[in-house]
Structure formats: C-alpha cells, structure tokens
C-alpha cells in the first residue's frame, strides 16, 4: 500500500482516539494499528481487560465455556448454574446444529436448563440446590450421558463448592458431571472460558475415559478428529464430508454435534484437525503431550484454503489418502468454477471490514480473495498474540487491525473506510446497516450456512452477493435529498 494511504489510515485511528479521555486513548491506542507487511505480528496488544464504559463487543467466560465449547455436546445436559439470565440469553442462539436428535429426550442443545438462583441461594449457598437439580435432571432426562455445571458469576463469589457436589453426584448417577468454573468475571473475555472449558473437558471426560471401553469403536489407520468446529449451520458436516470422501474416518467432532463418546475417544485419533485454534488449542496440546496425538491447523473456508488444507492433511497419511485428496479436489472443482463464474463478476474488488472472534478474522480472508474481494480491516474480540501472528499470513500491507474494538471505533472506521461489506455480530449488525453498509453476521452466518467446505463455499458466495448487491443499498437516501 502506498505510504500516503497508510498514513491516512493511521490518522483515522488517531482521530478516533482523540475522542476518548486521555487515559483511555492511551490504552486503546495499543490495540489499534495499520499493518506493515513483513511484521511478525499485527502490532496490537491483546487479551487485556476492556476499558469500562466503552461499548466493548466482548462477552464473558461463561459465554466461551457454555456458549461455545460445552453447549454443543448434544447428549449431555448443560446446567446454566446461577441466576436465570445467562442461560436465557444464550438459549438457541448459536445454531450449533445437531443430527438425529430429539430435543429433551436424547439431546438438550437447544434448551435452557438452569438452577435459576434466587436470593436465598445467594445467602445460604447453592450447593444443596445443585444436588436437587441433578436429581431432577435424572428424573426428567434419564437418557443423558452426563451433565455439565456451568458456573455463573455468583457461584464463584459466594463460595459454592460445585466440584465436590459434582464428584459426589457423578459417583451416584454413574455418569460424568463436569464442574466448569466459568464465572463471567474470570478473565477478560470469552477466551478464558474456552481455556477453562478445555481443562475441565480434559479432567472430567478425556483423561478419566482414557482406559474406558468404547464398544462402538475399533481403531483404524485413518482415524482423525475434527476439533474446534461448532457446526454453526452445519459447518462441521460440510467439512466432515470432504475428509470422509478422501478416505479418512472422522471419529469425533468437537464439539458441534458431538456426543460424549466422541469426546472421550479423542486421544485415540491418529491426527487431530483443529479449525478454531483459539478455542480448542489447549486440549490439542494436552492430547499431544499426554497421548502423543499430533494436531494440525486447517482452514476449510474457500477453495484455495480447502485445497491447501486437504493436501496438507493428506501429507500426514499415505498415498491412498493423498490420491483421495486430489480426487476430492477434482470432484468439486467444476462446481466451484461455476460458482466463481457466477459470483466473482458481481463481487470483484469489493472491500470487506471484519470484526469477529475465534478464527474467522483471518480464516475467511482467502475465501473472500477467491471471490475477488479484499479484507481491508480486521480484528478479534478475544484473540491472543499467537492469533495475531497467524493473522499476518492472511492480511495485506495497510490492513487496519483492531483488538477488542469498541462499537464506537468500529462505527468511525466504517465511516472512514467505506467498506462494501462489514462482517461482525448481531450487536454490530443493525447499527452498521443504518450507516448504509451491507452487513453479514459472521458468527451465526446470519442464519444461513454452512460456510465450511465446498458445499459451504457455494452458500458463502451466494450470501456475500445477496448482502452486497441487494437493491436496498442503492436506495438508502431519499431521492429528493440527493437532489439537494
């Protein structure tokens, strides 16, 4: 990018910072940058407390642990342990699709199950209530394969001992009960919730089950696990189909459409394939360290990255699988070429501004590139520095990078950068549209999807087209105002 243009972008950042109180401006300044090609990271601080009183987009540890990692496990009952709100607001909102499920009978993903703390539970402690809650779960949902206890803020503050309750009741009912200390005040964002969730998964499902019999499972040479895919709109299925078509056997999905059996079976994979590095790298590292299972990051957004990933995965196996990868790529290429022929002309040169969580601020970049589009600004709600390092491989010189951006910053950047499309979340969607910018929710795929894999890319391309090219964006100004 030309120096002048880059300087203008830096000035844009400075202008926004100038509107903060000085102390806040100083803090926020460290999280905003214009990327210089060749740098090893994006030049922003990350994983730091949000500034109070400025509208952060971030959630909390509970959101990371229950909403992301544990919630999608379908044959467990997940208790939102504490007051009613947390579970209520997250009920059915992440579109973690499940297959073969009868909700309330052998799956509880799209349910709000809570201990609904009342004042007396705060005053006298909630452990007794938790005991009864678990008993009542067994009465209502006897086919569950386990229970998780997702702590909300008060639980940690009033000194409840959920670990002890979990231990006792687990023995009693003969099923795993996982106490997850994901109170919302822990850490600075969802991220610590992921980490806590991974650790509890390790301690209460994986390690205890390491020597357990698994009658449905006979190990094979091509066994892989999909890790860090939450099956939003069916993403994991659109990924799995490719891995299976190339000859691999997918022995588990973590945790979109997961069963307890699949989680417990984790260490038996020959290779763990991780899509969302941020939320599940911890457990991959554990399985590598303790069970010697290697892991590989992959990216199934867009044909360029899909092909690269398929080949990289195949590299870990024999020629049969390598041929399988080539066969899969060849099979889907004509369909993808047709998609590109249809949509690229409609999307070529369009500029995207992203602000999401997890893997997407970088992972989707080349999928846009496949369509001739360019990401001009991106950032993460809850990344760590290793995410920003990885991001450098995806973004171009001059890309604006923001960490834990406030709604205020995003609005100003959008007005300055005038993107053709903004991709972020529900809280950002409607305000951005008011400004006249097309928008896609890139957490939930805006109720569409899947976006992973070849089948998903077709939908991705269609959706970007319909977002950007819908006629409404040419009509936001009253024509009599135009004339003025």
């Amino acid at each position, binding site marked *: 990018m030309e120096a002048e243009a880059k300087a203008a972008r830096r000035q844009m950042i400075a202008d926004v910072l100038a509107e*903060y*109180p000085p*102390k806040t401006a100083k803090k926020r300044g460290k999280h905003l940058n214009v990327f210089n090609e060749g740098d090893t990271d994006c030049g922003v601080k990350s994983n730091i407390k949000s*500034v*109070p*009183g400025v*509208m952060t987009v*971030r959630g*909390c540890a509970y*959101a990371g642990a229950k909403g992301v990692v544990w919630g999608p496990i379908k*044959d467990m009952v997940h208790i939102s342990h*504490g*007051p*009613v*709100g947390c579970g*209520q*607001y997250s009920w059915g909102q992440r579109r973690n*699709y499940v*297959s*073969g499920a009868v*909700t*309330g*009978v*052998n799956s509880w993903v799209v349910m709000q199950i809570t*201990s*609904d*703390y009342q*004042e007396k*539970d*705060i005053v006298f402690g909630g452990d007794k209530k938790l005991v009864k809650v678990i008993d*009542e779960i067994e009465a209502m949902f006897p*086919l569950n*394969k386990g229970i998780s206890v997702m702590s909300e*803020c*008060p639980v940690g*503050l009033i000194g409840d001992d959920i670990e002890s309750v979990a231990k006792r009741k687990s023995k009693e009912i003969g099923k795993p009960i996982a106490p997850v200390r994901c109170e919302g*005040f822990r850490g600075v964002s969802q991220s610590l919730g992921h980490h806590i969730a991974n650790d509890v998964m390790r301690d209460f499902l994986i390690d205890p089950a390491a020597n357990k019999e*698994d009658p449905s499972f006979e190990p094979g040479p091509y066994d892989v696990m999909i890790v860090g895919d939450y099956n939003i*709109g069916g993403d994991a299925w659109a990924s799995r*189909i490719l891995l299976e078509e190339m000859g691999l056997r997918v022995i588990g999905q973590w945790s979109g459409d997961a*069963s307890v059996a699949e989680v417990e079976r984790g260490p038996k994979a020959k290779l763990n394939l991780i899509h969302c590095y941020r939320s599940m790298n911890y457990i991959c590292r554990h399985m590598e360290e303790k069970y010697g299972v290697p892991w590989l990051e992959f990216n199934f957004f867009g044909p360029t990255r899909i092909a690269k990933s398929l080949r990289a995965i195949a590299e870990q196996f024999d020629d049969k699988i390598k041929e399988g990868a080539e066969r899969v790529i060849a099979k889907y290429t004509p*369909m993808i070429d*047709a*998609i590109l022929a249809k949509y690229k002309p409609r999307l070529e040169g369009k500029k995207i501004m992203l602000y999401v969580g997890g893997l997407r601020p970088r992972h989707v970049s080349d999928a846009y590139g496949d369509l001739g589009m360019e990401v001009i600004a991106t950032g993460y709600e809850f990344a760590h520095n290793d995410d920003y390092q990885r991001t450098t491989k995806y973004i171009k010189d001059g890309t604006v990078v923001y960490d834990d951006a*406030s709604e205020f910053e995003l*609005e100003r950047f959008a007005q300055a950068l005038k993107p053709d499309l903004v991709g972020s979340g529900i*809280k*950002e*969607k*409607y305000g*951005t549209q*008011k*400004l*006249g910018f097309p928008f896609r929710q890139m957490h939930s795929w805006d109720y569409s999807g*899947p976006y992973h894999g070849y*089948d998903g890319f*077709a*939908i991705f391309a269609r959706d970007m087209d319909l977002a950007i090219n819908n006629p409404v964006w040419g009509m*936001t100004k*009253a024509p009599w105002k135009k004339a003025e």
Partner: protein
Amino acid sequence: MPQSADRILDHASLFNEPEYLELFARKHALENRVPPDKVQEQLDYTKSWEYREKNLARESLCINPAKACQPLGAMFATVGFAKTLAFNHGSQGCTAYFRSHLARHFKEPCAAVSTSMTEDAAVFGGMQNLIDGLSNAYTVYKPDMIVVSTTCIAEVIGDDLSAFIANAREKGSVPMDFPVAQAHTPSFVGSHINGYDAVIKGVFTYLWEGKTREPNERINIIPGFDGFAVGNNRELKRILNAFDIGYDIISDVSDQFDTPTDGTYRMFDGGTPLDTVRGAINAKATVSMQKYCTEKAGAFVAEKGQQYASFHYPLGLGATDEFLMKISDLTGKPIPDSLEKERGRLVDAMADSSAWLHGKSYSIFGDPDFVLGMTRFVMEMGGEPVHCLATNGNSEWAAEMKALLATSPYGARAQVWAGKDLWAMRSLLATEPSDYVIGSTYGKIFERDLGIPLIRLTFPIFDRHHHHRFPVWGYEGAIRVLVTILDKILDDLDRKTIKTGISFDMVR
C-alpha cells in the same frame, strides 16, 4: 453432488440430500447412541400424565423458563428516556447478552455499556471501574443522563452505588450536576419486569429529588416492558392525542427501537425528555399499562400524592374500554367520537369473524400482565383459554387470573400456572392440549413436539421480523391481534383440507 451454481442449497435443504443422510448414518454409528426404541419410549413417556406429575413436582431445576433477568428490563426502561445511556455495573458479558437479546427481537442496534468488572474488581470492589466507566461513557457518548444498574457481581459483593457515583463526580468523571440515576437489579431477584420497575423508580427518585409537587392536570403513562412498544406506544399517543389532554409517556422506547436506515446511526433517538420527567412529579395521576411492571414505581408516585391506576396490558375490547374510561375519568374529558367509531370497527371485526374464533382453545404464556390481557381478549372472542402460564407470575397474579377467568363461561376450562416454565407447559399441552398456543418464539417447541401451532404475540420474537412495529393495544391493535390469530386458524384449516380438496373453500 447436491450443490450447483444454479441451485444453491443452504442448511434447510442441503442436509436432506442423500450424501448427508449417509454421513449422518456413519456418524451415528460412532456415537454410542441410545437405541431408537428407547428414545421413542422416552419421547412417549415425556408426553404422559406420569411424566407431567414429575415435571410439575420439580422444585429446583428450571427448564425453558419464559422470563429474563432484571437488568434486561432495566436496560429497556433506561433507553426510553431521551439521550440516556444504559450503564451496567458488573461483568461485561451480561451487557453483551442484554444487547444481543434485544437486538434479536427488535432487529435494531441496542446500546449499553458495562464497567467490565473482572476478578480483581470482585476482590477489591468495582469503584475504579465505575469511575473510569462513567468518565469514558460521558466523554464518548455524550448522553444527557446515565442510568447505572447492577448485574450479579456488583450485587453479591455489595458495591455501594451511591457512594461510588458521588466519588466519580468528585473525580470529575461526570460534572457534578450531570444526571446519574441508579437501580439495584440483581438477576437472582424477580425478573426483567422488576428491573424495569427499578429503573423507573430510580429515575423518578433522582430527577424528582428535592422537588415539591405542584399538581397540574397532566397524566403520566408508564407503558411497562413490552416487546411491541414501538407499535403500542405510537398507538397510545395517537389515542391520547385524540382526547386532547396533557400527558407524558414515561420511558418511551418507540423511536429508539425503530430508527431509520438513512446513512446515519442514531445511538439515541426519541425518548421522554428529562425535563418532562422532572415535571412529571406534578402530574395529577400516573397510569401504568402493566401493573406487574410498576409495583414500586407506582407506590412511589402514590407516596408523592398522585393518583395511581394500573392495567394489565390492556388488549381487546373491554380492557381498552376501561383504559379510555379511566383516562376520561382522570381528565374529565369525554371519550372522543373517533375512538368510539374505532371501537365499533373492532366490534365489527369480532362479529364478522366470530364463527371462526368461537370455541377455539388457546394456551397463553408470557409476562403476567400480557397473559392477563391476552386471556381477557381471547374470552371476548369466544375463545377458551386452557393453560395460562407466567414463569414470572406470583400468587397474586394467579389470583387475578382466576378472578378474570371466573368472569366468563369461556374461562371454565382454564388452568393457571404461576412460576412454571415451558418444559412444564410441554407436559400440560401433551396431556391436555389446546388448539393453539399464544406466546413468544420460545413456544415454537410446542409446534415441533406436539403439532400445536404457535401464534407469536409477545416478547421475544426472534424468528419473525417487524411485528413489533404494529400495535396490539387499542381498538385498532386488537383488530390486528384478531387478524393474527384468525390468519393462523385459517392457514391451519387450509393446510388440513388441501389434500382431499373437500373444504378447501374459496370463501371463509
């Protein structure tokens, strides 16, 4: 290969394609699944009377409740005041949830800030967070007022809001005279309707402090927590304007939750001007549209010497009549002829459609006032309530419900369920079904599990758009409610009769 450029299938159809059905079969073989016959057995069992009894006997476990927590209501009430910022003292995740919850219903941006308390604040208290937060919020968003409400953490550790705010003023976070109202809204007490109440009372308390009441002829109207507030408040104003009286809506979110898309983002739009709220102490009377949303605020205005009257989400013919007569009583103004004509048009619609509506049975869930209001209108149309349920309803509500049901022969079958959740309702409907369910989006589980069509008429409605832009209050709103119900009945009839063709009639 299911996908092609000419016909792109998304999730709704893609996963019915054979390739994916085979994939599911492969996956299920690796899941250690419960055998299908056991699943079916348990599914059948969940619909039995025995299960129902167990289900209703639950004391600790709450499943699919139809209620949210106090701070959501606090945020809703706050943004109904002009240029007023909702400011949560507590964990930031709470605020993210409130904002997205409201955004999903209204399809609107919903602004609120948090003090982002973390572990250290849990230990040392959140004063510094509040001081920094007020400073930032005041500087960046330039509000005319900030309303501080709490979430769990601040309540559990016992942060002293008044002292903290006073400190913040002294530290220059906000000017000394800048309005900062406050409300204690712990999630472990009550529900969103109480948070609403707390903020209304908190704002009155702050803005009326030190004022002496000089009674005038104006009327305050407090709408209450209402997912249809955009349509309803506008309709309320249209109705009151027809009276030609002085009135003020206290917390009016109708513009805030319906800003235009024209290239400008309005973080604040509309709302009750603060001077209006200041003057509201002098009103002759305060009228609450939803009694259970304003118990404390109502007591507070009464203490100040105002007349206080409350309604139960007045919906339909009789309730609107009573509301208008109350306004007429309070103001001494006659009910305008134009409204009487609207009344006649509602009666007309009810008469015209009565044969389709008569004898249909409904189960109704939602906030206590909504369930009261909706049940009343349903009975006015000759409909029969079967289960009336409010997770956040208490014994007083149950008594009021029963009294209402006793006023009409159409209420004879109805059962009242205070404090019960929607998983309990599933058992009730499985064992004693009604023709339709009236409630929020959450009720779509009954459509899926029991085949009982859902009529979406209360918050939250996440899976349909813009309904809240139309009123359900007033005579005209009631016609809309009637049409919403009738459309569902007639759609249902068409669906049932389309196969044989018999009864697939051209006229209904």
